[in-house]
């Protein structure tokens, strides 16, 4: 069961305001005005809508990398949303992953070493920069003693962390898992590195429409930052405390292409297998899936492969590409998009895909039903999927269902 959700992202600092911004058709991408961006080939991004410092204690802000700050704020919102459940610490786990990790702390520690010498490297550096730092910060804040995990798989990390969290509950190792993804890597090194891969949009003069998944002239993603977190809870535990679940995480799956260091397998076989496995584990047939929150970053190859996979695997599903509004949060993407998929099911409204240049004819030909800029009401929506496909062929799919009306799942 999903009993709580939270996020901080480029559109807003919490889930309700994020939903409002999506309903309003807003785009979070903007030009980077910082000095460090002046000489970069890419000078657009989707920075956080609010400053974490405004919501954290001075010590939390000082100690934690920005990626960890995002994870902590999203987890706090999700925890409160779930009703701050009473749970034995030994039965509470955390599974929160970054895709890139606390890179700001890595770079600032390196700067300290070079500029001020080894004695001036702060003792707080390692706990700030380790890849599991966001999960560790949340685990410490909530007192999670069943385990604190951070399975990292490029841009599928957030979704994989949620899949892993579901496994912990299915295996009986925890009653509640706080699970999601985070990243905050708007650093010149990261921008330059993704730009070197030709992965980023270079629409420097038109940031608001630069992220255009499925468009004929898509030219890469817009780097965003933020986190999305779910509270996953065993059905019996939720029932025993009288919690009102939001949705059911019916099935989850992870696969790998084992094909190329960066590019997805053009056939999308393992993407398709992740999707089918998630549905199979959830006891769902493809025809029941009414909505997919696609990974759809707006890269040329990535969108084309995913569009073919979705068109042949869940041909009846309407597809939203919310990265058109939020940018690509890397590890945070799977977390945020899981939050948005749960909200879509709960509200029975599909978030928009901003389509300033329409849809690539090659994608239209597939018969893919892309939700347009207005969003869409779907009164009968019963099942929805969130897909996450990372560089290197890391694939994750999460299948959610509306609360069962006549039987427990």
């Amino acid at each position, binding site marked *: 069961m999903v009993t709580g959700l939270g996020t901080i992202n480029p559109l807003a600092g919490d889930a309700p305001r994020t939903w409002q911004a999506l309903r309003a058709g807003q785009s979070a991408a903007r030009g980077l005005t910082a000095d460090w961006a002046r000489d970069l080939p890419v000078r657009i991004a989707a920075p956080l809508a609010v400053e974490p410092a405004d919501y954290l*204690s*001075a*010590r939390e802000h000082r*100690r934690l990398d920005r990626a960890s700050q995002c994870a902590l704020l999203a987890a706090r919102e999700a925890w409160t949303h779930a009703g701050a459940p009473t749970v034995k610490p030994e039965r509470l786990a955390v599974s929160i992953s970054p895709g890139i990790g606390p890179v700001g702390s890595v770079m600032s520690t390196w700067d300290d070493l070079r500029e001020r010498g080894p*004695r*001036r490297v*702060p*003792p*707080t550096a390692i*706990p700030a920069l380790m890849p599991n730092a966001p999960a560790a910060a949340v685990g410490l804040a909530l007192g999670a003693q069943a385990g604190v995990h951070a399975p990292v798989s490029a841009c599928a990390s957030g979704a994989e962390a949620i899949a892993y969290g579901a496994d912990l509950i299915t295996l009986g190792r925890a009653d509640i898992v706080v699970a999601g993804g985070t990243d905050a890597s708007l650093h010149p090194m990261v921008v330059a590195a993704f730009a070197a891969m030709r992965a980023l949009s270079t629409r420097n003069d038109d940031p608001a429409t630069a992220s255009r998944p499925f468009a004929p002239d898509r030219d890469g993603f817009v780097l965003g930052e933020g986190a999305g977190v779910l509270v996953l809870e065993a059905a019996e535990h939720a029932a025993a405390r009288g919690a009102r679940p939001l949705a059911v995480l019916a099935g989850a799956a992870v696969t790998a292409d084992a094909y190329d260091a960066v590019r997805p397998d053009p056939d999308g076989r393992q993407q398709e297998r992740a999707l089918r496995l998630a549905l199979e584990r959830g006891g769902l047939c493809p025809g029941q899936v009414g909505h997919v929150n696609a990974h759809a970053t707006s890269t040329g190859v990535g969108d084309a492969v995913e569009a073919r996979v979705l068109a042949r695997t869940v041909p009846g599903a309407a597809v939203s590409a919310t990265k058109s509004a939020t940018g690509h949060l890397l590890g945070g993407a799977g977390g945020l998009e899981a939050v948005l998929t749960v909200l879509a099911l709960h509200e029975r409204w599909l978030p928009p895909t901003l389509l300033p240049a329409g849809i690539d004819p090659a994608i239209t030909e597939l018969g893919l039903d892309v939700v347009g800029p207005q969003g869409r009401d779907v009164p009968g929506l019963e099942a929805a999927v969130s897909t996450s496909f990372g560089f290197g062929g890391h694939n994750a799919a999460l299948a959610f269902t509306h609360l069962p009306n006549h039987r427990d799942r």
Partner: protein
Amino acid sequence: MTDSPTDILAAVTQIVAEEAGVDTALVTPDSRFTEDLDIDSLGLLTIATQVEERFGITLDDALIPTLTTVGALVDLVGRNKR
């Protein structure tokens, strides 16, 4: 430059208060790092590092975790200054 015991106390108090996120008036030589100021092991190391930088000294790494009060840190700095 020499620092009097009062100078050392004032500087250490400033550094400790900043790490603890409290007003300097709440930090006294008797203040206990853990119980009174909610400073953990990393916080104590951060304070020690800043004290070392401020006074140009090197504290014995083995002694830092044994410091329980602000006064004990001031004494250790004083001994290192001599």
